[in-house]
């Protein structure tokens, strides 16, 4: 057969392979490996990091995210140490249990005591905003991890096994996609509130994580499908590696780029959902607070004490704004073709 002959004949002669800039680059890489300067396996991540650092908006966003996160992490403890009161401390003195504007104290004098003012019970807003941030960030992170675990496992399994099972699993995702799941989450949280405030937060993790894995599953499936026919998978199978091991040790690490990008973009989405539910009175319950429940509280006395709403609301918007920029920056860095 002529076709057969065609395929066996090398398209490019050996001498042609040894010229050109590509070869020169390869030789330099080899030299660097030998001298131990470059690990070839991490070059994708190095390139991505270099591109990310060049993106000034993303770097600025990342810095603000870290500052706010650190402030929320240590702030409440520091304030408690400095003032001797926890974030939900209500002063005994009746003249202090009212809302003071920022930097004001009884009698309208300037004071550093409450930089964001106090609420109608005299509680310090700054301490409450920072403490609410702890809950908001924790819910967002854990729900994202839950969605990551479900989505990655589900998508990778469907993509790797393929065939009928893949059809069935993806049809299920399609069906779930078109369900008004927020409605079901609202029914769930309104009718089955947990016994304790902490239990309610756990319920939030599960509810939010369980509904936000769908896109992740689709992304991972697409990645795995394009990877599974490559030679390194064939080699793994030929040496007798089990299917779960191929999925978790060979395919998922190679599909990590888009997964990281999507996970970064899931964090603000989940945070927003948590705030939305808390705003409706379905999420975090007192004495614990989150940015959403603080904003809800503030919205009730907006006309009289606007700072009750503005500080938690603006802090949250700033955090979401920066997280989104970081996510976009990561996407551009890890997938430069998408930017153009």
């Amino acid at each position, binding site marked *: 057969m002529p076709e057969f002959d065609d395929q066996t004949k090398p398209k490019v002669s050996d001498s042609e392979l040894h010229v050109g800039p590509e070869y020169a680059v390869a030789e330099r890489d080899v030299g660097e490996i030998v001298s131990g300067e470059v690990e070839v396996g991490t070059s994708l991540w190095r390139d991505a990091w270099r591109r990310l650092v060049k993106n000034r908006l993303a770097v600025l966003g990342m810095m603000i995210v870290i500052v706010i996160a650190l402030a929320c992490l240590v702030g409440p403890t520091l304030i408690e140490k400095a003032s001797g009161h926890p974030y939900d401390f209500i002063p005994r003195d009746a003249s202090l249990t009212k809302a003071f504007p920022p930097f004001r104290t009884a009698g309208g004098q300037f004071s550093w005591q409450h930089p964001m003012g106090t609420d109608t019970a005299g509680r310090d807003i700054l301490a409450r905003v920072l403490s609410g941030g702890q809950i908001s960030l924790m819910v967002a992170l854990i729900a994202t991890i839950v969605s990551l675990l479900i989505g990655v496992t589900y998508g990778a399994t469907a993509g790797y096994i393929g065939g009928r099972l893949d059809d069935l699993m993806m049809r299920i995702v399609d069906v779930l996609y*078109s369900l*008004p799941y*927020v*409605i*079901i989450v609202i029914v769930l949280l*309104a009718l089955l509130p947990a016994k304790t405030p902490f239990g309610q937060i756990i319920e939030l993790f599960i509810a939010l994580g369980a509904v936000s894995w769908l896109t992740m599953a689709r992304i991972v499936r697409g990645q795995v499908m394009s990877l599974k026919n490559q030679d390194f998978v064939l080699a793994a199978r030929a040496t007798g590696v089990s299917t779960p091991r191929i999925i978790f040790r060979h395919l998922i690490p190679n599909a990590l780029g888009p997964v990281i990008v999507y996970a970064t973009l899931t964090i603000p989405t989940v945070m927003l959902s948590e*705030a939305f539910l808390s705003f409706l009175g379905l999420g975090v319950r007192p004495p614990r607070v989150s940015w959403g429940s603080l904003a809800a509280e503030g919205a009730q006395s907006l006309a009289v004490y606007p700072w009750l709403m503005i500080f938690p*609301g603006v802090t949250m*918007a700033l955090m979401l704004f920066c997280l989104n920029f970081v996510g976009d920056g990561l996407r551009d860095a890890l997938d430069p073709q998408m930017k153009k």
Partner: protein
Amino acid sequence: MLRFIVRRIVIIIPMLFVVVSLTWALVRLAPGNFYSGEKKIAPAVEANLREKYGLDKPWYVQYGKVLRNIGRFDFGTSLRYEGQSVNQILLRALPVSAALGFTAYLLALIVGITMGTLAALKQNSWLDSSSMVIAMLGISIPNFVLGPLLVLLFSLTLFWFPPALWNGFLSKSIVLPAITLSAIYVAYIARLTRSGMLEVLRSDYIRTARAKGLSEWQVVTRHALRGGLLPVISFSGPALAFLITGTVVVEKIFALPGLGNYFINACFNRDEPLILGIVAFIAISVLVFNLLVDISYAVIDPRIKY
């Protein structure tokens, strides 16, 4: 195409079944009852109540009744708003939510597509970066923060618009809720339009259109937008589901008597017929809307075949 539509319509029925059954199970599994409140009820009264609402029957009889009711599109009477059928409440609340959602989405389409197209045409200019920063702000500011801020500025300081309540579709009272609801869609649509247009503007048929000597305006409106808006159209399907969650918050902020407000109250009141009625209604409209989006997709882009 026809086969595709029939298949999609047939799949709506089991999906509706799943949603309704899940909701019903949640309502039933939850501890307590709609009549269990602060006041202790005498056992005889409770027995009467249970008999009146059919709660004394086995669960499969009650479940069967729920399914039969939904099949006939008759959800029974509300437990909270006594003497009013769920259908009456739906008919009263729907126009409010529909008017609000429609206005907001229309606003979002007009502003978002304009912003995205301009950004794509002047890529990397100040116009591009400023509209993308505005879009990012729209995504990042939660609607329950934006709404009260707008009220603070336009109602309580400038006195331009009423801060709450509903005076009908064509009144000042729709302005602030519609802007609040549309902000995030403006942002998403602007971003989708921009990336869609950037891709299309580089394609061969746009070069052909330019080579024919068409004006830039004609190239954009007649040729580029048609392809560049496909991502926006596919976004419009899930957008309806988002729009519903958005209206829940916006209706609460502005105290509008729409579906979202009734839904939240029904959940807190454990008004089972009303919960099921609203859930079934929302599920049907989301599913039908998704179908319409898929069909319109094929109409706009002749390359897509089902």
